[in-house]
């Protein structure tokens, strides 16, 4: 709570307003701060009552609803929690958010199981041998202070996932106070190469894609319906796209080596030889025959015959695609993880982006993003290269203290990194954790975090649909366990150890956040309303919308550096490509301990509770493998064994294992189910960006002689309808959609 004395003290200090802005997250702001925005702090009228204490609205049997933000991924969907008798029961989408417009994905639905998870860490734990001993928060903070004493800034590192909003501000200020620049932002699954390609080509990392305005979408492995960037938002655009522009239903073509959820919804799905996505793109440009100058020169050798030979896509399909792209404009070409996961990932992505320029889509279905006026709060976006750098530094013994904010690199680093061993070289390791996952188990001190439904925060999503939005995260109920703490609260306590003066006005993160929002009230649309009203409105809306400027994209067509390698010869020893699949349920495996996620069938294979090796039936026949055979998948790095599932939606040269299972820690619903493909992933990197080339691992398959029953939801008839009209289908020439309701 902010007591008026401390505020007066603060106000009485030689007080640098610029620094103060930085403390609260509005430093470098492009949106104006009103002079009177921070009266409440300066005149000390502030009293903060955390709303979780106010219980007078609780009527037994009647639900109340609070708005907050989904934290299961970084898309930033807004949620409305249904609360009864003080317990959160169910989440719905908040209809007011332009991102998810009232909808949620399955992962978002399962967030309540994160909150109520029986395996959450409940006490600060200090390592004692191989056990964790519960200690008090005072002791934990004191210990951190003690361990930091005499340690230089460059000897301290922090690794986190994507982070934005005021948590990012505090995190930044804390690192600053430690004199450390070593904040590694790491996401195991992130479109970092696509961002780099976009930046070069469009001048921005993430433009706005308008699937809903496109008549044809050609996607090279971008699983925008399942896992890519902002899936709920894109799913809604997709629904509009299928209804059609001017009554003409949108056509989706998906080219990838392993079918994704998006691929499963395509009008035409093309099995592309792994790594040749860029070649296919140049082949289509060639077939279009409209390119001029440099571009024409670049594609002139990519004739159908060659492209078909190299990519495995039939020449007739290349013609058909070129024809429909020419006929129906505007279209939209997307590039996703399947294309970026190679050594030449950036080249692949560049070749694919080029198609958008040739087709004239830029500015029509690809728009400039809205820019966030508060740079301190804009999201820091994770990269896999960050983990590589951190790992190298750790191996060199550079760090004495390592903070890990709820990331799990011991689970998601390729085995050859030896991350676990390298992490041990850091003298003192602090993990902010929800679960005792593989990485938290290696820490010396574990700080138990509040669930996202107990915590305060602000989030600015990377992909903004419409306007700039600052999403509010607020507790939907009181904390379940007395000794967990909010991420912001922990940061505040830590930063106070360094900069007591600047932060002493804030007793807790709630107070900080409230002051921060009110200080900038006018710029946030609250000019004229009093503080309490504005704050309450902000919380009840769950979103602060700002109109952000969105300029034009500055297209830069420079094909001089664009060169695609000829497809690799098949390696006799490791003849298959390993595709570590990102699935909509599991993503990077941080939610595997939510039982609804484990029991929710994989949309494509319908498998539950286990990993599988996806293999084309033709290849399986050749190798004498049937469904349920346990096979050993061996790469240069190592091997894992898992059950085979025969799946026609994969190129015969490839096998696929999903990411996210194979935990040997974390909790009862995750531990011991399945295998982890990161254990056999070779450390190969995208050559321009240094990102991990996740699709470059080559493997061989051997039978182990064991066979199991695959646990799946498919039903005895497999994928077949046995001649009944169950899931029926028409083609566009049979149906007139324009008459429909």
């Amino acid at each position, binding site marked *: 709570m902010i007591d008026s004395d401390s505020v007066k003290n603060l106000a009485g200090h030689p007080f640098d307003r610029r620094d103060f802005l930085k403390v609260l997250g509005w430093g470098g702001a492009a949106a104006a701060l009103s002079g009177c925005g921070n009266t409440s702090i300066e005149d000390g009228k502030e009293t903060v009552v955390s709303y979780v204490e106010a219980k007078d609205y609780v009527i037994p049997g009647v639900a109340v609803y609070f708005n907050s933000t989904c934290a299961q991924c970084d898309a930033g969907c807004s949620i409305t929690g249904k609360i009864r008798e003080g*317990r*959160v*029961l169910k989440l*719905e*989408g908040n209809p007011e958010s332009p991102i998810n417009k009232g*909808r*949620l994905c*399955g992962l978002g*639905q*399962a967030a*309540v*199981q994160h909150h*109520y998870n*029986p395996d959450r860490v409940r006490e600060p734990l200090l390592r004692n041998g191989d056990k964790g001993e519960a200690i008090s928060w005072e002791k934990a903070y004191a210990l951190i202070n003690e361990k930091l004493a005499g340690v230089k800034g460059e000897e301290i590192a922090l690794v986190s996932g994507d982070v934005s909003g005021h948590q990012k501000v505090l995190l930044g200020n804390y690192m600053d106070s430690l004199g450390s620049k070593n904040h590694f932002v790491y996401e195991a699954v992130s479109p970092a190469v696509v961002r780099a390609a976009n930046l070069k080509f469009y001048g921005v990392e993430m433009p706005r894609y308008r699937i809903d305005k496109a008549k044809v979408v050609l996607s090279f492995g971008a699983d925008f319906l399942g896992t890519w960037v902002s899936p709920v938002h894109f*799913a*809604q655009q*997709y*629904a509009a796209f*299928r209804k059609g522009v001017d009554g003409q*239903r949108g056509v989706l*073509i998906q080219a990838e080596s392993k*079918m994704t959820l998006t691929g*499963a*919804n*395509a*009008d*035409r*799905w*093309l099995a592309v030889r792994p790594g040749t996505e860029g070649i296919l793109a140049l082949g289509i440009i060639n077939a279009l025959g409209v390119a001029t100058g440099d571009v024409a020169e670049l594609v002139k050798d990519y004739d159908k015959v060659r492209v078909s030979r190299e990519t495995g896509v039939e020449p007739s399909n290349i013609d*058909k695609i070129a024809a*429909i792209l020419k006929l129906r404009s505007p279209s939209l070409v997307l590039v996703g993880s399947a294309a970026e996961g190679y050594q030449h990932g950036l080249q692949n992505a560049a070749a694919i982006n080029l198609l958008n320029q040739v087709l004239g889509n830029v500015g029509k279905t690809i728009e400039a993003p809205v820019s966030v006026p508060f740079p301190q709060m804009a999201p820091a976006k994770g990269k896999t290269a960050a983990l590589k750098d951190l790992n190298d530094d750790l191996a060199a013994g550079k760090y004495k203290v390592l903070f890990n904010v709820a990331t799990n690199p011991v689970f998601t680093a390729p085995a050859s990194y030896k991350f676990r061993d390298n992490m041990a070289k850091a003298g003192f390791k602090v993990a902010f954790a929800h679960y005792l996952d593989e990485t938290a188990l290696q820490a010396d001190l574990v700080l138990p975090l509040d669930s996202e439904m107990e915590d305060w925060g602000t989030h600015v999503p990377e992909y903004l649909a419409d306007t700039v939005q600052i999403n509010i995260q607020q507790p939907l109920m009181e904390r*379940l366990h007395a000794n967990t703490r909010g991420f912001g609260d922990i940061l505040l306590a830590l930063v106070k150890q360094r900069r007591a003066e600047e932060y002493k006005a804030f007793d807790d993160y709630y107070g900080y956040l409230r002051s921060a929002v009110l200080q900038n009230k006018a710029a946030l649309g609250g000019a004229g309303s009093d503080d309490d009203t504005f704050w309450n409105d902000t919380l009840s809306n769950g979103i602060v919308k700002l109109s952000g400027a969105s300029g034009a994209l500055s297209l830069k067509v420079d094909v001089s550096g664009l060169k695609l390698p000829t497809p690799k010869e098949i390696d006799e020893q490791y003849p298959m490509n390993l595709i570590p699949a990102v699935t909509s349920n599991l993503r990077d495996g941080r939610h595997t301990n939510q*039982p*609804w*996620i484990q029991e929710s*069938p994989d*949309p*494509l294979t319908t498998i*539950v509770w286990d990993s599988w090796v996806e293999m084309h039936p033709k290849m399986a026949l050749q190798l004498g493998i049937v469904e349920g055979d346990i096979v050993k998948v061996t790469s240069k790095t190592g091997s894992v064994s898992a059950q085979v599932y025969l799946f026609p*939606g994969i190129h015969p040269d490839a096998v696929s294992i999903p990411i996210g299972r194979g935990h040997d820690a974390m909790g009862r*619903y995750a531990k011991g*189910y399945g295998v982890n493909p990161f254990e056999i992933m070779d450390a190969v990197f995208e050559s321009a960006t240094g990102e991990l080339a996740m699709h470059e691992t080559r493997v061989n398959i051997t039978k182990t002689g064991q066979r199991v029953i695959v*646990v799946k*939801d498919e*039903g005895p008839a497999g*994928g*077949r*309808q046995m001649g*009944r*009209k*169950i*899931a029926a*289908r*028409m083609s*566009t020439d*049979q*149906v007139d*959609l324009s008459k*429909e*309701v």
Partner: protein
Amino acid sequence: MSVTNLLDNWAAVRHFHPIDDKPHDPYKWAMAIDLDACIGCNACAVACYAENNLPVVGREKFKHGQVMHWMRIERYWDEDGRDYPDQGFQFLPMMCQQCEAAPCETVCPVGATNHTQDGLNSQIYNRCIGSRYCSANCPFKVRYFNWYDYPTTENVWPAEMNYQLNPDVTVRGKGVMEKCTFCVQRLRAAEVTAKGEGRIVREGEVQTACQQSCPTGAISFGNLVDPESRVHKQWQAQQVDLDKDMQEKNQKEGGSDLRGYRILEELRSYPSVMYLERVRESAV
């Protein structure tokens, strides 16, 4: 006795809605699912777990077919021997079709499953004796039996997880049958509120949990006898009639260019769920 005779006799004694002199009034809950919009993402199914207190059975019991998902996404691919499913898969959300003449009802020895006034197939848990005849007789295989006492089974709802249980929905014990209810607890709440205000439930006032979550809006739900409801309009535009076992539009030469159909309609269970056929582009 021939099968035709059997069916004729059955139809004569069978009580089902709407019967001519007693149409559904004021409610007949029904659904329309657009398979061209459905992407097979499973969000609806997870939302159903959250809303309806469905137990997670775990790998072993799943293997034995004891999964309790009231809503499942069936997935099909082409059967014509092509190398690849190169026109994608077909996804089909499948749950109780709330049949108007439900085959599950007639075989229940204790009358635990019945047709309600507002057009649902209800399940009375504390009357159910677990004979499982209903499940055997359901053409859609959407009934799920509690082989175990899930509330007391390890790791189904361990401490804290049980806090999430929806107090508006019974937690079922061992030995009873269960299935999709069209989120009857939401319907009843809306009906009671509306009645208190002297009106009927308005279009959009109540949503099922699956419908509410669905990212593409593939599911529409509402009162089929309310001419203002989207479901009513959709059924009408698609020329699908609730109490027909064969739609007129399909008897025309060359079939129909409308997408609406009901699954296994010819079995004369008169399902309350209409599906709209998936569409695939003919030009690519």
